[in-house]
Structures are given as C-alpha cells and as structure tokens.
C-alpha cells in the first residue's frame, strides 16, 4: 500500500453532520413514533383518500398527503421507521455477532473447523440474495420475525469472511505467539488479542450493512414477502402506491425518499467511520 496521505475516501465535503442528523432523526422517529406522528398510521378514513401533500382538511394538515385508504403518509413513514430500525438493529447485531465469532474461530483454529465454516460461507455468499430471501421469507411466513431471521441467515457470511481474513493476518503476530507461550487459552487469545484488532473493520462493515438490510426488508415487503399489513413498512407503502401512481404519486414516492435518505446517511456514516478508524480499509 503506497502513501497514505491521500485521504481518498468518497465522503462528500459537506461534512458528516447532515448524515448524523438524518440518522438521529430516523432513530428518534422510530422510538417516539407514538408522540411524533400526527395521525394513526392504520386508521382508515375513506373520505380523506388520496389527498395531495400539504392538503389542509378541517384545520389539520396532511403534510405528505394520504393514500387510497385515507391513511396519513407522514405518520406511516414515522411508524415505518420503527420497523426498519428494529429489523436493522436485530439483524445487523445478530448477523454481525454470529458471523464475527464464527469467522474468528475459523481463522484462528484453522483445520477442519475452518474448512466447514469457509465452505458454508462460500455457499451463503454464492446464493442469490433476493431469491434466497424470498424463499426463506415464505418458509417462515411473512412476519417481522421471519424477516429478521432471513437477514441473519443471509448476512452472517459477510462478517465471517471479513473476520476470518483479518484473523489470519493477525494470528501470526508476535503478541499472539507470546500469549500462547505464556499459556493463554485459545478463548482468551481470541477475546483479548484477536477480537479488539478485528472489531474496527467489522464495525465499518456493520454500518454499511445497515443500509443493505433496510433495503432488503423494503424489497421483501414490496414483493409481499416481508412485513404483513397493516403494519406500515416503507416497502409495503411503495407497493401500495404502485397501483395509483398516476393519480397519487406521493404514496410511493415518499417512502422511497425515506429509504434513500436513511441508506444514504448510513453509507456516509460508514465512510466517515472507516476514515476515522483506519484509512487503510478503503478497499471496502
């Protein structure tokens, strides 16, 4: 690797603040949806169907309009954030933990365990994501739990591969050999020497993974294999609006913007994190 003074990250020069702000807003909206949303996300009100954004009816403003059942889009987006956050948090955390642990074990122990784990990783990475997600989602019946499980099953392999690669680099280092000579057990070495040095790249991977997971959940919901109605999910909202695109484009447009903004922010955050933790990780 040549001179490191280039700072060749893809971060936009606006600074990381807008991204932080959006992510904070996203989390805030998800957690405090009950207090934040002006209307109920599931209450059907046919007399108010298909209102354009900024419509004012009877003194109340529908900032983002309503869908064909009269449900307020803004409220549904706020509640939808909750779904996305839950799936993203559980999914990334679980996939990340399981994958990292397996990856470190594989990289450190080598041998048969490594072969088994590596082959499994290869197979998982080779599977067409969407197709696998669809099949799994239908096996587990469309539900929040099902989607979370799908996410874990699909993404653990990425963490395992990354962790294993990093572990392979580290295990030949002096301090590891010294620890072994001193009689440390494998578990201690993996926890106290290997893991702290591997965790940085895994964290960066996790932040990028958040965006991917949210998009996957939205895609599954869009295709009808994700979160079932009436729970608002950004993906389902896009699907809902598909039939009335001509007359009420905002029904599909708004949730898509929400997805794009959140994924964008988490990608920018990932770039920033990577630059902070280790510019050498640019290759991610």
């Amino acid at each position, binding site marked *: 690797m*040549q*001179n490191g003074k*280039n700072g*060749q990250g*893809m971060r*936009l*020069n606006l600074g990381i603040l807008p991204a932080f702000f959006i992510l904070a807003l996203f989390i805030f909206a998800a957690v405090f949806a009950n207090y934040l949303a002006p209307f109920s996300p599931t209450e059907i009100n046919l007399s108010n169907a298909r209102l354009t954004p900024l419509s004012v009816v009877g003194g109340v403003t529908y900032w983002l309009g309503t869908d064909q059942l009269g449900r307020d889009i803004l409220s549904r987006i706020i509640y939808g954030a909750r779904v996305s956050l839950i799936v993203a948090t559980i999914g990334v955390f679980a996939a990340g933990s399981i994958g990292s642990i397996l990856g470190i074990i594989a990289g450190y122990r080598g041998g048969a365990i490594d072969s088994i784990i590596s*082959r*499994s990783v*290869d*197979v998982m*990475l*080779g*599977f*067409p*994501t*969407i*197709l*696998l997600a*669809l*099949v*799994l989602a*239908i*096996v587990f019946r469309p539900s929040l739990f099902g989607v979370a499980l799908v996410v874990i099953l699909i993404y653990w392999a990425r963490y395992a591969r990354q962790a294993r690669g990093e572990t392979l680099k580290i295990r030949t280092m002096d301090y590891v050999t010294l620890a072994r000579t001193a009689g440390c057990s494998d578990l201690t070495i993996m926890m106290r020497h290997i893991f702290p040095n591997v965790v940085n790249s895994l964290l960066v991977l996790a932040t990028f993974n958040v*965006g991917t997971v949210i*998009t996957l959940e*939205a*895609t599954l919901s*869009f*295709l009808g*294999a994700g979160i079932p109605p009436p729970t608002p999910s950004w*993906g389902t909202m*896009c699907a809902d609006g*598909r039939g009335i*695109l*001509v007359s009420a*484009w905002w029904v*599909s*447009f708004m*949730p*898509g913007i929400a*997805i*794009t*903004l959140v*994924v*964008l922010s988490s*990608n*920018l955050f990932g770039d920033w994190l990577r630059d902070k933790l280790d510019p050498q990780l*640019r*290759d991610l």
Partner: protein
Amino acid sequence: MARYLTIRLLEGIVALVIASIVVFGLARMTGDPVQLMLPDTASPADYEVMSRQLGFDKPLPVQYWVFISKAVRGDFGRSIRYRRPVIDFILERAPATIKLALAAAVASFLISVPLGVIAATKRGKWQDLLVKSFAILGQSMPTFWLGIMLIQVFAVLLGWLPAAGNMGFRYWILPAITIGYHSTAGLLRLTRSAMLDVLHSDYERLARIKGIPDRLVIWKHALRNALIPVVTFSGLIYVHLLMGSVVTETIFAWPGIGRLAYEAVIYRDFPMIQGLILLFVGLYIIFNLIIDLSYVYLDPRVKYVKE
C-alpha cells in the same frame, strides 16, 4: 498454477454440492406441493397416488439422490405449475435476462470507467463532486423504487418510453437503467479509487520520469493496473444483475428468469425453484473461478501468493 486451479475447482464443486442440498431442503420447507396441487375434495387415497406419481413418497435421501442424478444431466424435473420440463423454461427465458443483464453491464462499464477516470484526474473539482454524488446516491436508492419512479416519470408522465414488455430497443432502456444503476455507482467508486491509487504510485512516477507523455501514462499504464479490482467487481456485477433482475423483471413484466423465479417461489414450484437457485449458484462459482484466473493473468504478483 495448475494445482491452484484444481484446488479452486474442487472447492467450487464442494460448494455446489452443499448448495444443492440446501436448495433441496429449502424447497421442501416452503410447503407441501402435493397438497397445493390437489383440489380440496381429494381423498387420502388420491394424495397417495399423486405422491407416488411425483416421487414424493420416497424417503428424503432417495428423493435427493434422484434429484441430483437427474440434475447433473440437465433434467430438473417438471414444473409443478406449468407441467413442462423446468429446463425448457430456463432455456426459453434465460436469453431475455442475459441480454438485459449484459446490456446493463456494458452500459455500466462504458459509463463508469471514463467517469471514474475523469473524477480521479480532476480530484476535488466539480466534476469529481458530481461523479461522487451520482455514485453515492446510486448505491442508496432501492432498486424497486427507482424502477417504479422511472416508470412514473418516463412512461406515464412523459410517455417517452414504454413500461412493460420487450418488443424493441426502447423497451430495454428503463429496465436496464433500473438494474444497472446500483452497480454503475459501485463500479464508479471502484474505478475512481483504483485510479487514484495508481496515479500516485511509484511505477506511474517512473513512467513519467521515462518521459512518456501524460495522456499515455494515464490511459495506458494507470488504467491497466486500475482494472484489476474492477475486473473482480465486474464479475460480481454480472451475477448481481442476474439477481437484481428478480425485482426489475417483476416491475417491468420482463419475460426473463428473474420473474420466473419470483413466481416459482410464490407458487411453491419446487422443481423450478431448485433448478433456478442451482443455476444461479453454479454461475456464481464459475464466475469466481474466471475472476481468479484473470487475476493470475493481470497481476503477476498473485502467482506467488498462496492463501
């Protein structure tokens, strides 16, 4: 080198076998197809007859063996939904998807390589900023949303381009953009950073010292070395395009294997699901092998580095 290749090949086959077992298991888990196919009035006796006919009454390992031995010969069984051999459908619809994926990949390459080079050489200036924004945005938008928005703007509002079907060149434009936007963005970032890497590297400086004109330096030397990670990524792009086609083809009613796969899952069409997933995994493995091969060719350093 030959040993390296043989090992990779064997690994690939093992992965394929594992994948086939997983696929076999998964398809079975989605539900009982015999039950799906029988009308509600069917009796247990009818169930028996149908099971035996389709071979579902045999123990699982036997079913698996039958599946594998046929699959190797290209016989993926008959589609439960269409009653015709799966392989027929795959062969019939694959060209449409492959053409679309290729078109998108080519367009991807043509757009991102020059733009990536420009962004790298004009680093920090407005061209770079524009390219970077385009790339980051592209990787953040969900594909399905881009698809329906494109339809809304170009097909419905402006009426310039058609929204479904594939009867002519104009029908390709929107689906190709939808599939390709994501990977174009990724390829763009990669080309740009690979170019930046190389532009400041030692051998580029050496080439300059030798007196080679600037333009030549950039395009010939820098690009060839920058292409290495790009080649890797391109292989993955191609496979991703095949996968991203599931969503895009469903939205644009494109008669390809992506849509076929989606419908197969919805209808619990085991043989179809198995065949398609196996196909995709097989392609992925083959592509990785090809990439490994070209790695050895493009970067001589790799030959001496074993895992």
